[in-house]
């Protein structure tokens, strides 16, 4: 069966969607990604949708789901590269893609993920210090 490849890069998982997804493929991607987050203990997921000419409510829901599920698994999700026409259409359709971060391109998306992760990493470190004092 067709699958969308998920690449691992350090603490991040990268997904580039190059073809128009039919439903099965999209739901598979959702399940695969969450499995991968669990297996690799990834802290961030970056999804590049620059090749997608259409994002309908189904695809929007899948992206939102990936965002919320990753969040529960302690990973941040950034969707990058949305085409302007897709953004216009999404808002008119009534979808706001809540729950996922967005960035203009892969580079900015990566920066955003790194920023988010260092922000969260600092807090637990302080806790560890307290433990060592005890």
């Amino acid at each position, binding site marked *: 069966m067709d699958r969308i490849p998920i690449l691992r890069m350090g603490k991040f998982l990268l997904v580039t969607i190059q073809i*128009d997804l*039919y*439903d*099965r493929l999209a739901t598979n991607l959702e399940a695969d990604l969450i499995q991968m987050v669990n297996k690799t203990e990834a802290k961030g997921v970056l999804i590049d949708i620059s090749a997608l*000419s*259409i*994002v*309908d*409510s*189904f695809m*929007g*829901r899948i992206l939102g789901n990936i965002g919320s599920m990753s969040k529960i698994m302690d990973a941040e999700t950034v969707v990058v590269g949305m*085409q*302007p*026409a*897709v953004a*216009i*259409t999404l808002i*008119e*359709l*009534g*979808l706001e893609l809540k729950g996922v971060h967005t960035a203009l391109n892969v580079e900015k998306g990566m920066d955003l993920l790194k920023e988010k992760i260092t922000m969260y990493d600092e807090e637990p470190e302080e806790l560890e210090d307290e433990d060592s004092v005890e």
Partner: protein
Amino acid sequence: MKIVLNKDTMKIEKEQDVVPFRNRVKEYAVKINMGLVNQTKLITAASELVRNMLKYANGGIVLIEAISQGRDNGIRLTFQDKGPGISDISLAMKDGYSSGKSLGVGLPGSKRLVNEFDIKSTIGEGTTVSIIKWKNG
């Protein structure tokens, strides 16, 4: 007066039919030189409606037409199914309402994306949705 320039019908029976259908709509839109934003709106609306048809009526038939009215060209899509029908159309057209598990943006959302939207439904016989997107609409 709307004149039909070119037409095509497509059977939608399974989810794998959605992508080829969207591509066919795109071909029609490109042929009349529709701009990219309008193309995207039309194809997204088409995608929502075809998905509804699959979900609630196990598929149906779509008529794709390139039409012209005066100086304006456009694409008309007619989605016909033999599903259970919609009992309360005004409720189904409401944002956020869904009888299924979806987000409830399909019908009202696609109406916002096109220029003309017409829905007729008879309980037990099926539903017909017809949309028009004008090239410069």
